[in-house]
């Protein structure tokens, strides 16, 4: 599997101050994280995945492959999941121009999104 690193969290998911807040609204899914960075400064991050057509959460105890996604957003380029969706409905698949994004948070597991894109807002 080929994955491309898109974004690295400035905070450590192993040191989160509180649980990730996950919100789903319209076609978007937002993950809010609050934790400490390398200098032990408290920071807040919001990641919003846009036009999410499929998503999946897997326990950390069931993720033998991380694809380089520990504390990162990676795009799985040769995703089998994408290929499966394209095979089911090629026309609809092409309309959305979907990507397969993965982010792994220590202790919380792997979050996967079939989405058009994502935005990150970092708060100091």
């Amino acid at each position: 599997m080929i994955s491309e690193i898109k974004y690295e969290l400035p905070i450590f998911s192993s040191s989160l101050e509180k649980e990730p807040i996950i919100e789903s609204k319209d076609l978007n899914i937002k993950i809010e994280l609050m934790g400490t960075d390398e200098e032990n400064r408290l920071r807040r991050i919001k990641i919003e995945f846009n036009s999410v057509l499929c998503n999946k959460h897997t326990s950390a105890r069931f993720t033998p492959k991380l694809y380089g996604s520990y504390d990162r957003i990676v795009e799985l380029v040769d995703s089998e999941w994408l290929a499966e969706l394209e095979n089911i409905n090629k026309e609809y698949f092409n309309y959305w121009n979907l990507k397969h994004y993965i982010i792994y948070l220590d202790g919380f597991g792997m979050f996967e999104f079939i989405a058009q894109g994502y935005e990150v807002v970092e708060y100091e």
Partner: protein
Amino acid sequence: MIAGTILGAALLGADAINTTVEIGTGENRIANGLYELFRNENSTKQDFLNSYYVFKDNVYIISYIYLTLGLAAAESGFPTPNSMSGTGVLDNANYAQKTYSNTFSREGRKIYSELVGEPINTIDDLASAINSGKVNVAEIPVDYIVRDGKTLILNTRTSQALTQAGIPRNQWNIIDGTGDPLFENLLTEQSSRNNLTLEGISTIRPSGGQ
């Protein structure tokens, strides 16, 4: 190993019964009976009997090995490969992360709360439960892996609770996850994220003010 021991003993026992009751004769009766049961046009009775005795001898040898190894292991108290306690495996073990949160993950909280019988949310909670005897150390496994001769602990918060409770590492219930992709891949990415070499780090600190 226990299953192997039981199997070995059972097979040896069965053989012993055959050989003590009319040596040779009883065995021939069994062989003849099996021949009648499985006979086919493509082989002679002598072929079948030859195969039977070769098979029986092999079963006897394997059973003997199983029984010998099984009893030896049982007598020496040798542990199963993946779970050990009372050893010094973790004496010089390090961590693959620099900081940790005091609160367990959702899954960790549920598992420990059910185990203890009261809410366990933090490292402090688990340490208190250990100290008060509400949970036995043997019920709290700690995963580790060995890579390039270095031992690294994977369950950071659990190990901190045990340390806080004053339980020496050689009394922890440790599980060797070496070679398991679930643990190996996590360790690789965790070390990389924390800018640590494969040696890890011996001292870690709690993060923030949780």
